[in-house]
């Protein structure tokens, strides 16, 4: 019973928050609603016993991602009202409703097949974090490492793109201009 109440409560809250995120014309509201929605989602994780995931969700999203976005918003000066797409709103709403309904139609039908075997069963009496660690560093070691590389790539990308390196475009400059800049030691 408690579970049901919690589910519906958080479901309502998440949907509401995300709805605000995509509909509000105030960027700040959107950001705040998104952050709130993320936290509510972590609540589901806790309900579902995925404690580690819940923690990661809060740390990564609200801690890192939202901070980045907030930083970005300051940079972009998005406090003013956001213009929205005119005209074909019906297409958008129609398409998404249709998509939702279609999926729900099928998803709401209970799955018939019951022979799902857990490949990596949760072990009784072991904390979620430990379980995660166990699977993550055996089976998913390679993906984990690749994810690390992915983050490295993202970091380099972020630095390259947002840093000074992109301020002058060698692509657009002719040879003389490049030489000039080179002498100023701006370019490598």
């Amino acid at each position: 019973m408690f579970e049901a109440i919690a589910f519906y409560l958080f479901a309502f809250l998440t949907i509401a928050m995300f709805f605000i995120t995509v509909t509000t014309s105030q960027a700040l509201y959107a950001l705040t609603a998104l952050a709130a929605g993320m936290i509510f989602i972590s609540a589901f994780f806790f309900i579902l016993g995925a404690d580690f995931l819940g923690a990661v969700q809060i740390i990564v999203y609200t801690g890192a991602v939202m901070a980045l976005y907030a930083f970005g918003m300051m940079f972009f000066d998005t406090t003013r009202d956001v213009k929205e797409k005119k005209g074909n709103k019906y297409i958008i709403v129609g398409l998404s409703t249709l998509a939702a309904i279609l999926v729900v139609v099928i998803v709401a039908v209970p799955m018939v097949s019951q022979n799902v075997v857990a490949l990596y069963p949760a072990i009784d009496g072991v904390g979620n974090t430990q379980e995660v660690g166990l699977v993550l560093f055996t089976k998913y070691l390679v993906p984990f490492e690749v994810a690390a590389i992915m983050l490295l790539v993202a970091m380099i990308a972020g630095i390259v793109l947002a840093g000074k390196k992109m301020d002058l475009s060698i692509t657009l400059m002719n040879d003389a201009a490049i030489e000039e800049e080179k002498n100023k030691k701006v370019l490598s």
Partner: protein
Amino acid sequence: MLAPINISMGSLNVMTLAPMLIPIVGALLILVIDVIKGGLHKSLYVGLSLLFLAMDFFSLLDASNLFAQNGTILGMFDVMLIDGLALLAQFVIVLASMLFIPLALTHKRFHEFSYPEFFALFLFMIAGFQFMVATDNLILIFVGLETSSLALYTLIAMHNRDKSFEAAVKYFTMGALAAGFFSFGAMIFYALTGSIEINKIALVLASNGYTDIGYVLVGTAFMLAAFAFKLSLIPFHTWAPDVYEGSSAPMAGYMSIVPKIAAFVVAMRFFEFLVHSGIVWLDIVLYAFVIVTMTVANMWALVQTDVKRMLAYSSISHAGFVMAAILIGTTQANSALFLYWILFSFTNLGSFSMLWISRQKSIPDHQMSDHSFDKFSGMIKTAPVPAMIMGLFMLSLAGIPPFALFWGKIYLISAAVTSGYTILALIMALNSAIAGYYYLKLIVYMFMKEPVMGNNGQMYVANATLALKTIIGIAAVGTIFAFVAINPLLEFITDFVYNSGY
């Protein structure tokens, strides 16, 4: 409490990681070199990248020897999967990359190549692709895909002009949406089967006889959407022309080959068992994808005014053409896919390289865009050899025998014929005719029109250096003399594909 886990290194088959690790190491090395001493010339990085790719290539050779002897190799807790498809795809990826990277050594200077990060990201991207094809675990596929995509977005943006940013943003945004599709699709299949490994999914689905067909279809729909984005199938293709136009020519050529072969391999792994499970819906949908993509992309290519954009649409059309192999799903078709793509990579990289060596920094008034058709008018009079090479690539793309792509085409059409897809075969053939028109358009401009006043032909080779010329030479030779290589190539590919069970 958890019992300690004992894992023997031998059972891990760490060697399966070697082909991916090599470029990663290379990338890290480049980063380190840059940290130690900045401002080094790009040729150093080109050289290093080439060397690492060569090593990668040799490790692949090694792996393929193993495969030829022992069959499919699993490694790293069965996450890594080195089978024929993985090897073939990696060969294509690495070879195309080796052909691509010397194109950085242009005569004029361009932004991206001036920074070592470019080469590091490039190598990371290759590793990402390699991971993507060398596994049947959806997580690793996803992570590999994102690694390479994120790197690719950056590489595109690093060309550093408005259009390239626009391209990168578009690609990025749509990629994020596609990532959502992918994860949703994976979720459905996970919900259905409790597994995220393709072969296990296939096993479970087969064992319960596809009872939850609705779920399967929804999951397939999402997966299809995700791959259709990557493979630029209509209507998920909209990024392709803009991104090709926005990025530098060699990057566009590269994008038309490498990400797609990776996606094709994954699609092959994912859809093949579904195709064979007799889901009529999938047949219909794939059929529609193939025909619409081929035909409509061709129609759009007809009306382009810029060569690069035309080539972008033509690449879409080629992807649709090759998608037929997934639909047909026989060994012959799958072999044809690889054959086609290998031949396509030579030709397409060649043609994009030809655009690259004629790239100007400032566009004269009469020219509407970077590579508008009129730029090439009368090229035969002012720069005969480049014109002929360009013409050669166009003919090959159009499927004129005996140039490279013709062989891929007939083998693929033959696969359609063999499997009873008569109408498909005809449509594929007729599409080549439509395609003939726009390839011909460039030839018409180059060979049959008068050159623009004051054009001495220097423009067409302004960017050329020995390295670029070599690459173009290799591509041209590969295009012309493809018929010599078809037989060994075909035997090799068929062997690999067949032994991987596809």
